[in-house]
């Protein structure tokens, strides 16, 4: 088995979930797209093993923050499971943003940013 690829900042489970919610706040996405968008938006800084997005999505779905549905894309390709925010997910995203900005401000103050 190849070595696991993981670079950039280490994300906690909560932070990873918040980033996924933020991406889904823009539009519906499926797992592969979320991974690609995460990498693009962070300019490659966040580069987790790609498979880790699925347990995170399952957890968010179990918590009622996102909902998933299958989409048949045809041409022999496997179906895609798209996710979108639920109302609870939107509230969680708003709350998470506030918490994150508060944390960031505090961290900046300590670090002199």
């Amino acid at each position, binding site marked *: 088995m*190849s070595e*696991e690829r993981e670079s950039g900042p280490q994300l906690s489970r909560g932070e990873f979930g918040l980033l996924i919610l933020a991406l889904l706040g823009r539009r519906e996405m499926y797992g*592969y797209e979320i991974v690609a968008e995460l990498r693009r938006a962070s300019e490659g800084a966040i580069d987790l*093993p790609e498979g880790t997005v*699925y*347990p995170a999505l399952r957890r968010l779905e*179990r918590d009622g923050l996102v909902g998933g549905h299958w989409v048949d894309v045809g041409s022999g390709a*496997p179906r895609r499971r798209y996710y979108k925010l639920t109302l609870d997910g939107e509230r969680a995203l708003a709350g998470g943003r506030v918490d994150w900005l508060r944390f960031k401000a505090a961290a900046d103050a300590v670090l002199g940013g």
Partner: protein
Amino acid sequence: MSEPVNAQGRLAAHVESILNGAAFRKRDRDDLAEELYGHLWQRWQDALAAGLDEDAAADQAIRSFGQPARLSRDVTLAYHSRVYASTIGVLVPTVVNAKAKPRAYFVVWLVHMAALFAVTGLLIRAVTEWTPVRAGIGIAGGLLAYLAVIAAFAAYGARQRWALGFARLELPLLFWWGALLAWSGMPAEQLEASAVGIVGAFLVMAVAQSPLRADEYPGRPAPVRLALSFVPRDWRLRSLSAWMYDRPIPRRLLVGLSGMLIVGSALPLVALNVADPTQIGPADMRVQLSVTCTQSASGDVRTVDITASFLFHRTDMWPNGLARPGGGATDHIALAVEGARPNGISMIAPQLTQAATGRDTTDGSPLTFGSTGQDGRSVMALPDSASFKAGHQYEVVWRYAVAPGLRDITPITFGYDHLERFYLQAKASCGETSTAQPVSQLYVVGP
């Protein structure tokens, strides 16, 4: 597992290896498998489009996806707590894909079944028969072993290979359990109760959506699937081949599980040999024997009045087990009245002239017991030992007549057996009163 024949097969195998090591809702398996495979497939397609060949593209997709062990754990954590994920989630991942049609050894099924039967029997025995502290120790041990066996059984149901090796540990312990059960004298009805207990365990596992039910017979009603789960797989598939998954189990977890089985099996023996402070000992009783004789004018002994009294300073807590706090074994008293051989040939034995009577001298209530023989040695059963009260003195009186010609009697022996746990014995001749002392021999009375 056979080697994948092409790149897409390798992608599918990667997904299988992730899901086989994870514990999650069985009904989510197909969705998860399709979603993970879809990701790998698209990554593979992108790599092909970038100019890599099929195998190199598959390598890249798999490498980017992450290690199966970590992803298995992440999937488990998405459904369960961290503690569950690092213990049960490792031992008993969700059942493997039913399409793989895995089989397992019938012999191992039997070993697990027998281990479950034995440990269930031990538990029932401890609960129903043993005194509180012994039962507590026995139950603790039984539960430890029970959990270990259940985990192994469930893992077997999920076709986890470690369950095969674990059965090797269960086998010698089965003999040990059998010996212990035989030693502690399990009656037939408890053997039946063990079987009922096992059925109960299966029901609990079925309710808990145990992997034992696997994804066998999808679409059938739950009772049918449950009934079919009792049938060893080999009976259905008529195959003796095994095809089980290698699931790496952390050494510490396996050692812990083995320890649960071994320690759990040893604790009942400890329980049987430990002194239970909730049960009385010889020092908690006072037993006395008084003998009064009347003599004729010629000096012959004519009547012998015997009074035996006993008092409990405290009584046992559930002497017959938690399940039968009010009933069970009884205490016994023993009396030996023998004549002398004045001429060295014939024996002159006292004859009982008045039926023995007993009473509680504290409250005056009668004390019933078995009949006394007309002469010689007698052992009589007292009422249920649980009916005796602490601080009350109980008394039993006998009157014997002696044929002319006997100048004296040999010392009379009185014994008290408490639930075959200890035995107190006193001896007295005419005009004497003595206090009983503990002796190690049971039911050996008389001179």
